[in-house]
């Protein structure tokens, strides 16, 4: 770490501040790097440029080229080298530049990262965090708007998480880095610039937990539960506000941890509301939304007054971005689904 520290260096641990999600992640990374000099960042363009989304802005300058590596253009190398560094005792944080570019690194994630702890019977830990800016809505060309998180949820040995606000961005990033397990960290890129007040002093609850973020009015008769995560949380919260005006009361749950799932808050809510709408922009087939539906129908069979309803991206490749407003779940589609489930 160089002697001259940027202003950011002082920003961590300073009480409540207004931060964007991107800045929350940036300060979370910074705090983790300060706390543990084994934390090391790898990725394309993350150093001098500070990342194409500036999430690593200023970190190479302050921590040097051996802790913030501008790597060769090679995703399998990024994950693979991170694994080797982890075996050596480092805690690497990889950046995959966009969701669609994780696949060249897929084998390393599936065959090595997810399995090393298991196959070594716990003798080896691989505390690697893989950061993936994901999801659509930014008007981009192909491969820049995908939501591949379900693929990783299917793989045992990986923790899969997603943050939806600046507070979680700041804290979950540090918790993910502190975790001894490999963590796939999905960042809602189209919400990077959304702001919130973040208390950087009080660490919140655990990483691997869902959270009831809005509790509907229990006295209303028209009630349902909305479950989502990442970029669609904003949509769901807006939907809940809009629904409330129409006399429909919605519980809203942020999954946060996508795998292993922690669904207790969901079950608890559904047992009260009797209805569930699951919202995600990922395609529906064999996905996290299928999993939530399968688990809820199992656990809340007698409470459900309507089938679990899913609002998702379609089962198509991500379309040309001029069509993404149709592809992505929005306020209307969520409210429409709520109506449908209430009408059941």
């Amino acid at each position: 770490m160089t002697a001259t520290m940027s202003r950011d260096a002082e920003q961590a641990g300073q009480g409540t501040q207004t931060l964007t999600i991107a800045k929350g992640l940036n300060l979370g990374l910074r705090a983790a790097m300060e706390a543990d000099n084994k934390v090391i960042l790898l990725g394309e363009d993350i150093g001098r440029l500070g990342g194409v989304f500036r999430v690593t802005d200023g970190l190479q300058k302050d921590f040097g080229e051996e802790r913030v590596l501008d790597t060769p253009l090679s995703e399998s190398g990024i994950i693979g080298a991170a694994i080797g560094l982890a075996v050596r005792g480092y805690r690497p944080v990889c950046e995959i530049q966009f969701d669609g570019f994780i696949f060249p690194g897929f084998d390393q994630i599936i065959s090595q990262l997810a399995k090393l702890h298991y196959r070594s019977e716990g003798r080896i830990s691989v505390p690697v965090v893989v950061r993936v800016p994901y999801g659509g809505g930014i008007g981009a060309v192909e491969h820049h708007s995908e939501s591949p998180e379900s693929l990783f949820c299917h793989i045992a040995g990986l923790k899969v998480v997603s943050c939806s606000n600046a507070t979680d961005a700041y804290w979950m990033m540090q918790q993910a880095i502190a975790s001894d397990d490999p963590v796939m960290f999905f960042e809602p890129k189209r919400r990077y610039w959304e702001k919130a007040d973040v208390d950087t002093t009080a660490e919140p609850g655990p990483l691997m937990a869902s959270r009831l973020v809005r509790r509907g009015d229990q006295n209303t008769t028209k009630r349902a539960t909305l479950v989502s995560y990442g970029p669609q949380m904003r949509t769901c919260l807006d939907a809940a506000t809009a629904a409330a005006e129409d006399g429909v009361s919605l519980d809203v749950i942020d999954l946060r941890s996508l795998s292993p799932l922690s669904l207790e808050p969901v079950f608890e809510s559904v047992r009260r509301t009797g209805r569930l709408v699951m919202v995600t922009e990922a395609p529906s087939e064999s996905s996290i939304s299928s999993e939530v539906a399968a688990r809820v129908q199992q656990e809340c069979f007698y409470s459900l007054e309507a089938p679990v309803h899913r609002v998702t991206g379609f089962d198509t490749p991500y379309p040309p971005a001029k069509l993404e407003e149709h592809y992505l779940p929005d306020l209307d589609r969520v409210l429409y689904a709520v109506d449908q489930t209430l009408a059941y």
Partner: protein
Amino acid sequence: MSSPETWTHPEPGAVPAATAAQPTPEQVIAGLRATTEGGIELTQLLTPEGERVASPIFDGFVSDIGAEQLRGLYRDMVLVRRADREGNALQRQGQLGIWVPLLGQEAAQIGSGRALRPTDMAFPSYREHGVAWARGVDLKDIFGIFRCTDQGSWDFQGSRLHPYTIVIGNQVVNAVGYAMGQKFDGKVGNASHEDTAADSDEATITYFGDGATSQGDVHEGFVWSSVYDAPVVFFCQNNQWAISEPTERQSRLPLYQRARGYGFPGVRVDGNDVLACLAVTRWALHTCRNGNGPVLIEAFTYRMDAHTTSDDPTRYRLSEELEVWRLKDPIERVRAHLTRTEGADQEFFDAVDAEADEFAVELRDYCVNMPDPPPERIFSNVYAEPSPALDAQRDSYLSYLAGFESTAGEG
């Protein structure tokens, strides 16, 4: 210990090997650090000042290029550059989501693109607007990609220009597979004599950047093509940068030398010299068509603009670098040559400029009037054969949409 030859005869007691962190001066000049020097093995036929340099090896491959043909190449480059600048402008005005400029790489793309026969096949990356032009693709059909209305809409099979590929390097193995098919189809090695290639002979070219050379797929393409003698030219445009990363993040050695490890020819050409690019690519295609398998060409050039319109290069490179490369502009040297040696007058240049102006207007008109695709497009062509499950998703979404319209109608 800086020359590859000695690395197979190591001398443990000798001076230490050059390393990436401590390159030899020779390595730096050879392209390890961003530089304008291509090194002594750079093939050049036209100097930056527009002087024609003789090449006993490659002259024969451009013996048909007289004044008229050179004017044609000049016109190609000017029109393509104009289209490129229009792309930038359209993006700034909100008409495109993004633009990927080719500024500075016109010679590499026109020279190599014009070396192809109609029956040859090309697999581009995402910056190959000049190649598209040379393949006869209407550049309008490129703009939809960047306006995000489609993902490429030209006649891929007819033009023999495959769709753009954005995932770095992964089109390279596809190109090799295609070239294997050309060979299996008997379209290789039909010449009666080594100096010629039969009319029926074909080859494939694939484009990728300096950054792409680090990807596993590019390697696998190199392995496959050399093992199957696939007629494929690997055309690497080393524009010195992979977004913010200089070539030294990808290699210790000049990239054309990568081929040495696989046993096929690798050459470095001045990528800002359209004539040299034409000659060297023609030679490489000739080699391929004759059945000798792949060739790697490194076109030593420079990305004179940002990586894309979303990028800000001032964050990572010095403007001096750009200034030096400006002196090597691919268009200027042909202009100088045409003026000094081939008697081109102002009228010619004005005519090309006027044509370029018209072209730009045409592109702009087309672009701003490009309709959005209908929502049905989301669901079409996912499968070649019908899928009832997907049809149901489409129908349900369309009737949901129709519901709005009817509500709107009522309201």
